[in-house]
């Protein structure tokens, strides 16, 4: 086994894991704080990617694209929460599952109509379009390293937000005991809207930043959704820490699964999930 190859795959796994974390953390927060399962979460990732493609062709600048895209996602998240999701908090799980499934259908079809179903690519910005040498023979795309760094920074920012700010304390309190937070006089509606928008923005941001690295394709939302679910199952619902650990675990399982057992790579992550479930049915960290 070539050492350089292992290093490359490790870097790939870390990058994929951090990206997954951005998506999964939104999913687990929304569930942990509001108790809502959101199947449409993968669609936000897909929307981010297609948004990046559309805005990038308009502005030609990835940085501007991501900033504008993130702002738009936050607005979209707030609107969706106000119009639809706020009605779901009292509903049972099945209704949440089905309503958000309906949303997937709507989003996918809207995307089909507005942007089409083709696979697109987004240009890597010129200043990042080079390869970093690893050892004597192999190289690694600089953009992917950049992605990992950015995702790590965002993850750190999320951690600081949740653990070290007043808002974060309220989010954690809301996840523990919604009713008590309301009784204490905190505006729970506003808090929920914030958390939801944050979740949407994280997923969309992940889609945007990943767009130059891999293709923007119609099926990407569904793919990332199911893997995110596995991450949340393994990490524990509502646990951001769990989501981080699980994302990396799943990313490594998937990446190295493809290397060592390419024919069965598809089920590698589920085998890991089944194993963890046998050991801890509630996931690695309980919220």
């Amino acid at each position: 086994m070539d050492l350089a190859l292992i290093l490359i795959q490790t870097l790939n796994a870390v990058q994929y894991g951090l990206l997954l974390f951005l998506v999964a953390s939104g999913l687990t927060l929304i569930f942990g704080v509001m108790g809502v399962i959101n199947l449409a979460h993968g669609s936000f990732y897909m929307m981010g990617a297609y948004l990046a493609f559309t805005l990038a062709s308009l502005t030609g600048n990835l940085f501007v694209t991501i900033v504008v895209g993130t702002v738009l996602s936050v607005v979209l998240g707030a609107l969706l929460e106000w119009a639809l999701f706020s009605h779901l908090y009292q509903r049972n799980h099945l209704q949440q599952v089905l309503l958000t499934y309906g949303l997937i259908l709507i989003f996918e079809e809207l995307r089909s109509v507005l942007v089409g179903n083709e696979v697109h690519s987004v240009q890597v910005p010129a200043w990042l379009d080079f390869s970093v040498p690893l050892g004597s023979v192999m190289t690694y795309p600089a953009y992917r390293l950049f992605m990992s760094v950015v995702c790590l920074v965002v993850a750190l920012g999320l951690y600081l937000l949740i653990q070290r700010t007043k808002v974060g304390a309220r989010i954690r309190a809301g996840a523990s005991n919604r009713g008590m937070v309301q009784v204490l006089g905190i505006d729970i509606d506003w808090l929920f809207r914030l958390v939801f928008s944050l979740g949407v923005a994280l997923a969309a941001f992940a889609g945007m930043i990943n767009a130059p690295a891999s293709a923007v394709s119609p099926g990407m939302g569904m793919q990332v959704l199911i893997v995110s679910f596995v991450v949340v199952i393994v990490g524990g619902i509502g646990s951001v820490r769990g989501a981080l650990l699980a994302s990396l675990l799943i990313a490594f399982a998937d990446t190295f699964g493809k290397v060592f057992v390419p024919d069965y790579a598809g089920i590698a992550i589920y085998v890991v999930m089944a194993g963890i479930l046998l050991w801890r049915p509630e996931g690695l960290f309980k919220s």
Partner: protein
Amino acid sequence: MSSLVKSPARAVLIAVFFALLAGFPQLDQEFYTELVTRVMILSMFAISLDLLVGYTGLISFGHAAWFGMGGYVFALLGSKYQITDSLWLTLSAAMLVTAAAAFIVGLFVLRTRGMFFIMVTLAFAQIFYFFFHDVKALGGSSDGMNLRGKPSTALGGWVPFELTDTNTMYYFVLVLMAVLLLFMALLLRSPLGRALQGIRENEHRMEAIGFPVFRYKLAAFTIAGGLAGLAGYLFAVLNSAVNPEMLSWHQSADVLLMLILGGMGQLWGGLVGAFTFVLLQELLSSFTKLWHLWLGIAIVLIVLFLPGGMISLAERMKTLWPRRHG
């Protein structure tokens, strides 16, 4: 049979419905006869899920795994490995294999609850989806498999009927669907059925009373799996083809939709839901290519405004009509 027939009005409605179903093939509309056969098979699929969702309170998002598996058992036995094409053997095999698989998966997933359970059933269904999508020995191909033909009903030298005839297939499925409904009605009245409904109402209390809740849930999960396998088997026979999409989570979502459309925990909910769902699909797709969009909107509206399904619509309308006495 109080769960089957709630009132004389209901009894008449059911009788009329079955009379219509029985007479339908005589109209000689082969396309529609096949369509209704498909709907009946989907009803059986939905009813099998209702045992879990409506009566035990277990929301499985992976039920399509058993549906597809039932079809693939027939595909593998009859077409790929050509071991047997006897209806009696392949149908039994399909139900046994899917029930066994459901039993094993149940051992894993039933340790989880609520939201976890939903996600974990989805994930396990994905495993089976990958098996039939990727593993060559299991017919792995994204296009699925075309089947050699309908199963043979031969018993020794005697051939009771041929499933190659559209009408015969229709009646065969109709009889099976009626048998399934009777079976469900009996099951729900039985001690097992009562225990399941108790678990749906309050699992902790059932545990406190001393019921081995896990075993009951496992029993429900296994039975539901086997019944879904039956539906999948019939689906494969009808279409003379299998496809990994039979195990996809879209299929799992569709059957859940049928339940919420029709009404859960009502024996006829699966049936009403399947008919409504297919009707909705056919109508929407004939109007517009974007029918997914309208289906999505319809789903959102139904969940927001009519979460009890179409059956609850009947209840609601009753309250609109003031009863006049004397």
